[in-house]
């Protein structure tokens, strides 16, 4: 009985809190389905309207939003696949193969994670300029292809789940290096790969700083940059258009998260993921 009362008290705290956290999403929905006059009215409209498709139409007419959407999809998917493939192979090799200097090299890899080299923006940008990478997607794909954090994660997973007997047996049977990885490593790493892929995709989809710095051509903009530009130019005149774009940019990740909720949560749970 005491337990029951305690549970009620907990819900009394948690329920309003949950409402508070859901409100910005609800408000985004309200604003993207209303008219400008609803938003600037007094009192403002509090429930979703019926103008969603009209707003969407104006958005598609005025800016190349679909292009940005496609750009984001292409960049995020390729960057994610690349990073996950490199991390899985490197992590697997670090975990299950023995070679001179292995522990030493892995120590270096771990040490680089504490070195905040990422804050040096100017020389990095200058390297991209010298390589002719401005207004290409290469800066968003190549430097991040090998993630120390991802390799660390995959190595941990491989140490826990790969059975060395299986690898030995495969080698005795004369299986090649890549075949061992393909037939033994990948299946054993599957849960870790799923978690890492979802996370990596979310980071790539939301990446803002580097696209802002290296993409000057509006046809190449990814969603966050396109959204920021849209907000700058339409924010004062046509609010619902900005809100429709914001809503559309948000939906893919929410759907992805709801589909893979368990993998994402357990990845956070393994304490492996940065904030």
């Amino acid at each position, binding site marked *: 009985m005491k337990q029951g009362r305690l*549970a009620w008290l907990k*819900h009394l705290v*948690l329920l309003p809190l*949950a409402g508070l*956290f*859901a409100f*910005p999403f609800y*408000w*985004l929905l309200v604003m993207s389905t209303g008219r400008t006059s609803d938003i600037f009215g*007094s*009192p*403002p409209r509090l429930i979703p309207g019926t103008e969603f498709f009209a707003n969407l139409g104006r958005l598609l007419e005025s800016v190349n939003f679909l292009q940005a959407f496609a750009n984001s999809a292409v960049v995020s998917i390729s960057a994610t696949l690349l990073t996950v493939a*490199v991390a899985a*192979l*490197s992590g697997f090799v670090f975990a*299950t*193969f*023995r*070679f001179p200097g292995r522990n030493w*090299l892995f120590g270096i890899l771990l040490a680089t994670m504490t*070195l*905040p080299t990422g804050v*040096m*923006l*100017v*020389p990095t940008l200058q*390297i991209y300029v010298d390589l002719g990478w401005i207004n290409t997607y290469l800066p968003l794909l*190549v*430097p991040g292809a*090998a*993630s120390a954090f991802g*390799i660390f994660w995959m190595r941990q997973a491989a140490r826990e789940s790969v059975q*060395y*007997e299986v690898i030995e047996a495969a*080698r*005795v049977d*004369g299986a090649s290096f890549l075949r061992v990885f393909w037939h033994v490593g990948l299946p054993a790493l599957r849960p870790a790969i799923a978690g890492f892929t979802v996370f990596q995709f979310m980071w790539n989809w*939301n990446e*803002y*700083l580097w696209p*802002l710095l290296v993409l000057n051509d509006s046809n190449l903009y990814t*969603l*966050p940059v396109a*959204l*920021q530009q849209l*907000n700058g130019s339409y924010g004062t005149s046509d609010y619902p258009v900005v*809100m429709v774009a*914001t809503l559309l*940019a*948000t939906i893919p*990740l*929410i759907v992805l998260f709801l589909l893979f*909720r368990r993998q*994402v*949560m357990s990845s*956070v*749970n393994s*304490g492996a993921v*940065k*904030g």
Partner: protein
Amino acid sequence: MTLMTRPRTRPSARQTLKQRSVWTYWREYLAISPFFILFAVFGLFPLVYALYLSTVSWDGLGKMTPVGFDQFIRLFTSGEFQSALSNTVVIFLTAQVPVVVAALGAAALLSSRRLAAKGLYQTLFFLPQVTSIVAVAIVFQSLFSNEYGIINSGLQAVGLDKVPWLSTEWGTRLVVSIMIFWRSFGYFVVIFLSGMSSIPPSLYEAARLDGAGSLRIFRSITIPMIWPTILFVAVTGTISGFQIFTEPQVLTNGLGGPNDSVVTMMFLQVRYMGGTTQTVPTDLGFATAIGWGIFAVLILLAAINARVMGKRRKEAS
């Protein structure tokens, strides 16, 4: 373990098991090489390059002018970096610290095994974490808009005055902090919950039999047991908290807010690169010096963290 340390046994025509040349491991080295190559090119080389760039003044287009240590003198004397550092610290203290404390409390409430709708709460709290910071900033810009924002409309509806959120220094800082709070709360809740789930229930039962109350149990069992998790959160949260950029940049349309009140260190660096709304003349040399400033602050924080963690570990053992 023993299986792992055993050398590869695949026979090869060229060598015996005992004396394998390093070169026969080329597949292994090739497989792990991408990280080391990319780190050398995009991690280490920029540091060397940055030494040089911080000794020039350059708008990125014309000629570089060598200026010696002037950029560093400017870094220490112009006051811009100091005010960016203090803005960063203020936002960190008003956002990151409260969110960790609040998340700890919420995780304690959620940690009981029989609580209904536990998964639903977790999902709802986590959802902001998966949304783009740019999208979040745009929504918060409108929520806290001075004239037509729903927050001010709500305040007026209950008879209070409007708050000039985005046109005052502290208002803008507060909105940035609330954004960070909203976006990272669920992530910390999930981390703390996982830490709490590994505490053996027998500990709680024993404490309850001894007549300990909920608060006492939280203080004397939960907190000490999840201390490693708390430290992990403190370290990662500090490092990312000191690199805040997107929230203030989008919220203020790239301008930095009233009196540059939300110009953080990263924001200042990007501003001098000409990468955001142009309010200062581009100077890549000064931007590089700012980069060194941020680098130094983060190294210092990492050292402090390592010290504190080492101390704690000693106390624990």
